[in-house]
């Protein structure tokens, strides 16, 4: 188990480095903008046209970040604040905290993306596996490959625009924007649930279609590789029924990298689908980042980025720690993780 411990320590170092580097970048990059931060903040407030007492806000910032103190001292104060889970205040919607804004947005992103990611993963893997297994023998199945290629190549937000045009303007069966009808209360009634589902339909469809193409293509190529393995030939020589060879031998072995892929994409969903959410006005984390860019609300942008980095890095860490336990073929050491 010595090798595993070394592996564990190494992955922990990488996790810590990821978080530290991200916090540092998120802290220093905004301060590299020419002009002092305070001036920049108040100028931005004037730009944005926020009418409330910006002097009070600037003072609040001054004391919060200790902007009159040396940069390094500010940095350590920032790190201390972040490590206590305090992401600070939003500028655009002061005195709401960044944490509260993210808490409001997160459920929408998670709900939309967990469902769509899993649906497209299941369908993509199964169809891709079947098509890869059939190979050149089945012409109609092979016709799916170029379709998947087109879907995979199209950026997901391009598909979003096309769907929006077709199904919300040309043939208006779905709402254009938002996650629920304006004015409705968030409550657990059948009507509200239907409303939410109708609003989620188009963003969900655009995400499912595009990622379906990706899962399809990667599973197909995995199955094609597995097909040439000796254990498949062996299973065929033993005279096992074809469905059993496919599901129990080929599909199962090809599934492991797909599971890793799924876990990696689930790690990223905390960030929402930045551009898709923006196009559909869907109030998730991606849309929050977008509207913070519009109002130059740096604390929110920084907070959201840190949250995403930490969740992505955590998922990577978990995968790295679990993978060698699941698959004994993974070797450790310098050449192991390539």
């Amino acid at each position, binding site marked *: 188990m010595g090798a595993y411990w070394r592996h564990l320590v190494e992955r922990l*170092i*990488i996790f810590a*480095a*990821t978080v530290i580097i991200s916090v540092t*970048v*998120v802290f220093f990059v*905004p301060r*590299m903008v020419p002009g002092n931060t305070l001036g920049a903040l108040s100028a931005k407030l004037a730009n944005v046209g926020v009418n409330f007492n910006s002097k009070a806000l600037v003072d609040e910032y001054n004391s919060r970040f200790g902007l009159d103190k040396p940069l390094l001292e500010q940095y350590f104060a920032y790190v201390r604040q972040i490590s206590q889970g305090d992401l600070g205040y939003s500028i655009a919607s002061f005195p709401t905290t960044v944490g509260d804004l993210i808490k409001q947005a997160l459920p929408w992103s998670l709900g939309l993306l967990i469902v769509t990611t899993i649906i497209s993963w299941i369908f993509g893997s199964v169809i891709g596996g079947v098509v890869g297994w059939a*190979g*050149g023998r089945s012409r109609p199945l*092979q016709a799916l*490959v170029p379709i998947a*290629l*087109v879907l*995979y*190549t*199209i*950026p*997901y*937000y*391009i598909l979003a*625009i*096309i769907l*929006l*045009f077709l199904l919300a*303007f040309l043939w208006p069966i779905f709402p254009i924007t938002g996650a629920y009808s304006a004015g409705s209360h968030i409550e657990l009634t059948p009507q509200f649930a239907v409303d939410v589902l109708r609003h989620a339909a188009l963003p969900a469809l655009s*995400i499912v279609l595009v*990622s379906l*193409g*990706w899962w399809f*293509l*990667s599973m197909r*190529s*995995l199955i*094609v*590789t597995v097909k040439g393995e000796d254990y498949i030939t062996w299973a065929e020589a033993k005279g096992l029924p074809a469905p059993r060879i496919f599901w129990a031998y080929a599909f199962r072995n090809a599934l492991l*990298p797909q599971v890793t*892929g799924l876990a990696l*994409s689930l790690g*990223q969903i905390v*960030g929402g*689908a*930045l*551009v898709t959410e*923006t*196009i559909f006005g869907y109030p998730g984390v991606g849309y929050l*980042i977008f509207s913070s*860019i*519009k109002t130059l609300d740096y604390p929110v*942008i*920084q907070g959201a*980025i840190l949250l*995403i*980095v930490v969740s*992505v*890095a955590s998922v*990577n860490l978990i995968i790295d720690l679990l993978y060698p336990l699941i698959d004994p073929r993974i070797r450790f050491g*310098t*050449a192991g993780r*390539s």
Partner: protein
Amino acid sequence: MAVSVPIQELAGVPAPETVATRSAWQVLLHNPKFVLGLGFFLVLLAVCLIGGFLAGPIPLRSGSFPPKLGVGSPGMAIAGTTTLGQSVLAQLFQAIPNSMLVGLVAAIIGTTLGALLGLLSGYFGGRVDGILRVLIDVFLSVPSLLFAVLVAALLKSVTVPVLAIVIGLFAWAWPSRAVRAQVLSLKERPFVQIALLSGLSGWEIVWGELLPYLLPWLGANFVNAFIAAILAESGLSILGLGPQQQMTLGQMIYWALTYGALLQNMWWWWAVPVLMLIGLFLALYMVHVGLDELSNPRLRGDG
């Protein structure tokens, strides 16, 4: 969420077999996907450059045409006009080369930096390797679009080259990890050992023995980075973080959406750049597949 990872990487396909440079071009020129993709790309670029030169700057100005003309209007308004009466076709002539420039610059930066760091890390190993491996892993686990968003938001007004550099600086981690892995396996092979024994220096081996092996893979990665950069550019532009003083395909879509092309049913305004973007992606993807098949002969024929 489509992550642009070459598919065969996931399948754990071994390092590419040697392809002599002489025959490499012949193999590529006999690959219909490669020829078709590259052909489309070059024709598109030529049409835009010549068209943009012939059209001059006037059709780009607002008020040059009646506003909201549909597709099929005479002259430069054949692809329709915007709400301000600019020719969509003339915008396209500017946008396509600019988008290609973003892809080119970002792909050059990402691939060169990635190859260099990967070779360094993989061949020389040691402490440099340790640090680089951590850095690579950090960059791979951070969603790069987000940091590009942060940088672009702070720069306020970016230009096409600046945007290309920002995107390129986030594109080196994947190639450097892949190059590093390939170098680790290559350096155990007999020909490298022989080169070492015959007294070649480390750099001579990296440059003369390892790099030629990696070139086909780097070519495929270059095209992949090209696609990813155009994707990142259009994404950033749609978010309002693009080069707003210039035209790119993403910027065209941004203006169309911002000025309500969808609501006013002016489909040509957004559909023309969208179709061009898809065409460009498909063409580049075919080039990518062609290069992949070159570096990995197992992919050939199985289609």
